[in-house]
C-alpha cells in the first residue's frame, strides 16, 4: 500500500557523443493498492520508467516519490532499504540457477538480515501462496517458465513489499501460463493490497488485470486513464494501435479501409439491444461488419466491432449519431499508415 508519484521525470543516456532521451518529462501518479499498467511498443521507454521507480535508473531530471519520500534524498543505505520494500519480477525470471527454489526465495530475506529459520518459514508460506510447496528443493533448470515466474513472485514478496514492479513478466510465457500468472498477481493485489505496476506491450495484459493504464510512446506518456476509458475511446494513434494490433499484422482496417470504417465498443449492458440490426432496419442501408471481438476488460465483457459504413456522408453521420444515442462508443478509424 504505497503511492508512487513521478514528477517531471527525464532520463537521457549519453552514448558515443549523441544523447538519447529515453524518458521525456513523465508525470504519473500510481494510486496505493491499484494495479497500474504501463504499455508501449518496445523501445518506448517503459523499462527505463519502471526502473526509475526503484532507482535502478537514476533520473537525469525530475523526481520519484514513494509515499512522499523523494528517492533522490535517500542515502545509498536508505535507498537499499527502500528497495527491499519494492519487489520486482522480470521477463527472464532472473533466478539464481545454482540455488534451489527455497534458497532463491530466501535470498532477499538473507540480504535483509533475517535469521535462517525465520527466512525458511516465510519462504515456505510464500511457496504455498504461489502453489509450489512441493518444489522446494528443485533447481530452476527443472522448472517450466510459469513455475519459474511463480518462484520469482514468491521471492519478490519475501520482504513484504508495498509495491510490486512487473517488467514484461508474462511476455515469455504461453497464453494459458500468462493468464495463470496474471490471475495470481490479481489475487495477491486483492489479498495483500500491494500496489502493482505492470509493464507490458500486450493490451491483453492490461485489460486482464489493470485498473488504470498509461501509454508510453517515444519516452512520453501520450495517454493516461482508466482501462475502461482508454479501451472504449482511445484518443491517440498509439493507443488505437495497441488495442487493434500492430500495423504490419493482418488488419481488416488496412485491407478494407475506404475511409468509412468506424470502431464501436459496447459493454455487457448494451449488448441486450440488437443495435446493429436496428440500425440497418432504421436506415434501410447495408452495414458491413469487418471485425467483431469480445474482450475481458477488468472482469467486464467488452465487445468491439469494426463497421464499414455507406459512402454517403450525411447518412454516415446519422448512423454514427444513432449508435451513439444507444450508449455505444463510436470512433472513426483513420488510415494511420
Amino acid at each position, binding site marked *: 500500500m504505497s503511492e508512487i508519484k513521478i514528477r517531471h521525470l527525464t532520463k537521457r543516456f549519453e552514448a558515443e557523443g549523441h544523447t538519447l532521451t529515453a524518458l521525456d518529462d513523465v508525470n504519473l501518479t500510481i494510486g496505493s493498492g491499484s494495479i497500474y499498467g504501463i504499455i508501449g511498443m518496445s523501445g518506448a521507454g517503459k523499462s527505463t520508467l519502471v526502473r526509475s521507480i526503484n532507482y535502478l535508473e537514476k533520473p537525469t531530471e525530475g523526481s520519484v516519490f514513494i509515499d512522499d519520500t523523494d528517492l533522490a534524498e535517500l542515502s545509498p543505505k536508505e535507498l537499499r532499504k*527502500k*528497495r527491499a520494500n519494492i519487489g*520486482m519480477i*522480470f521477463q527472464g525470471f*532472473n*533466478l539464481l540457477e545454482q540455488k534451489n527454489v527455497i534458497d532463491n526465495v530466501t*535470498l532477499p530475506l*538473507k540480504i535483509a538480515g533475517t535469521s535462517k529459520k525465520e527466512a525458511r518459514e516465510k519462504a515456505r508460506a510464500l511457496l504455498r501462496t504461489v502453489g509450489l510447496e512441493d518444489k522446494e528443493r528443485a533447481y530452476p*533448470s527443472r522448472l517450466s517458465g510459469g513455475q519459474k515466474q511463480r518462484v520469482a513472485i514468491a521471492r519478490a514478496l519475501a*520482504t513484504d513489499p508495498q509495491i510490486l514492479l512487473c517488467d514484461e513478466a508474462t511476455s515469455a510465457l504461453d497464453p494459458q501460463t500468462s493468464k495463470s500468472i496474471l490471475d495470481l498477481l490479481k489475487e495477491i493485489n486483492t489479498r495483500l493490497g500491494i500496489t502493482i505496476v505492470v509493464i507490458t506491450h500486450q493490451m491483453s495484459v492490461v485489460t486482464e488485470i489493470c485498473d488504470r493504464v498509461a501509454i508510453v510512446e517515444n519516452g512520453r506518456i501520450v495517454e493516461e486513464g482508466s482501462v475502461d476509458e482508454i479501451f472504449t475511446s482511445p484518443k491517440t494513434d498509439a493507443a488505437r494501435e495497441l488495442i487493434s494490433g500492430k500495423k504490419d499484422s493482418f488488419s481488416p482496417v488496412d485491407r478494407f479501409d475506404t475511409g468509412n470504417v468506424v470502431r464501436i465498443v459496447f459493454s455487457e449492458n448494451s449488448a441486450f439491444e440488437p443495435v446493429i440490426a436496428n440500425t440497418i432496419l432504421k436506415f434501410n442501408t447495408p452495414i458491413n461488419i469487418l471485425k467483431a471481438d469480445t474482450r475481458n476488460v477488468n472482469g467486464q465483457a467488452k465487445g468491439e466491432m469494426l463497421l464499414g459504413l455507406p459512402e454517403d456522408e450525411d447518412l454516415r453521420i446519422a448512423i454514427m449519431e444513432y449508435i451513439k444515442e444507444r450508449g455505444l462508443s463510436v470512433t472513426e478509424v483513420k488510415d494511420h499508415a
Partner: protein
Amino acid sequence: MLEQKAIIMLLEGIRDTLYMTLVSTLIGYVIGLPMGIVLNLTRPDGLKPNRIIYRILDFICNIIRSVPFLILLILLIPFTRAVVGQSYGSSATIVPLVICAAPYIARVVEASLNEVDAGVIEAAKAMGASNIQIIFRVLLVEAKTSLMAGATITTGILLGYSAMSGTVGGGGLGDIAVRYGYYRWQTDIMIVTVVLLIVIFQIIQNLGSKITAFFDHRKK
C-alpha cells in the same frame, strides 16, 4: 628395473611436485581471487566502475603474463631469496609460481564473473543488496562452477610450470627429469617422470571436471 633409491627419489619427487602445485594454486587464489573480483567490479560496466583501479590491475596482469615463466623464474631469484632464504628447492619455487599464477587466476576469475547473467545482478540490486552482498550471495554463487573449471585448468598449468622450474633446481619431478634425464642420460628415469606427470595431470583434470559437474545445477 629401478633400484630402491631411485623409487624413493621418485616418490619424493611426486610429493614435492604436488606440494608446489597445490600450495602455489592455493596462495595464487588468495591473491588472484580478490584481484579478479576487483577487476570485475571496476570494469566499465561493473558494479563499481573505476577506470584508474581497473587500468592499474589490468596493466599489472598483462605485464606479468607477458613474461615467459622461465624468464620470470630467473628474474625473481633475488626476490625469492629474500622471501624464502634460498633460491632453489620446492619451497623457493612456490614464490615465482605464485607470482606467475596470481594474474592468470585474476583473469580467469574476472572472465567467470563476467559470465554471470546481468539480469540476476539487477534482481539482487532490486532486492536492496549492497555490492558486497551481490559479490558473495550472487556473483560467486552463480559463477561457482565456472570458477571451479578455471581452478582445474590453473592447477594443471601450474603442474607444468612446477616441472619447468626443474631447470633451475626447483625440485620435484621436473627437477629429477632434468638432472637424470638431461644431464646423466638416464632415459628410463626421465620416461618414468614424464609418465608420472601425465598421470598426475589426468587425475587433477578428471577430479576437477567431476567436482565441477557435481556442483553444477544448471543442466541436471
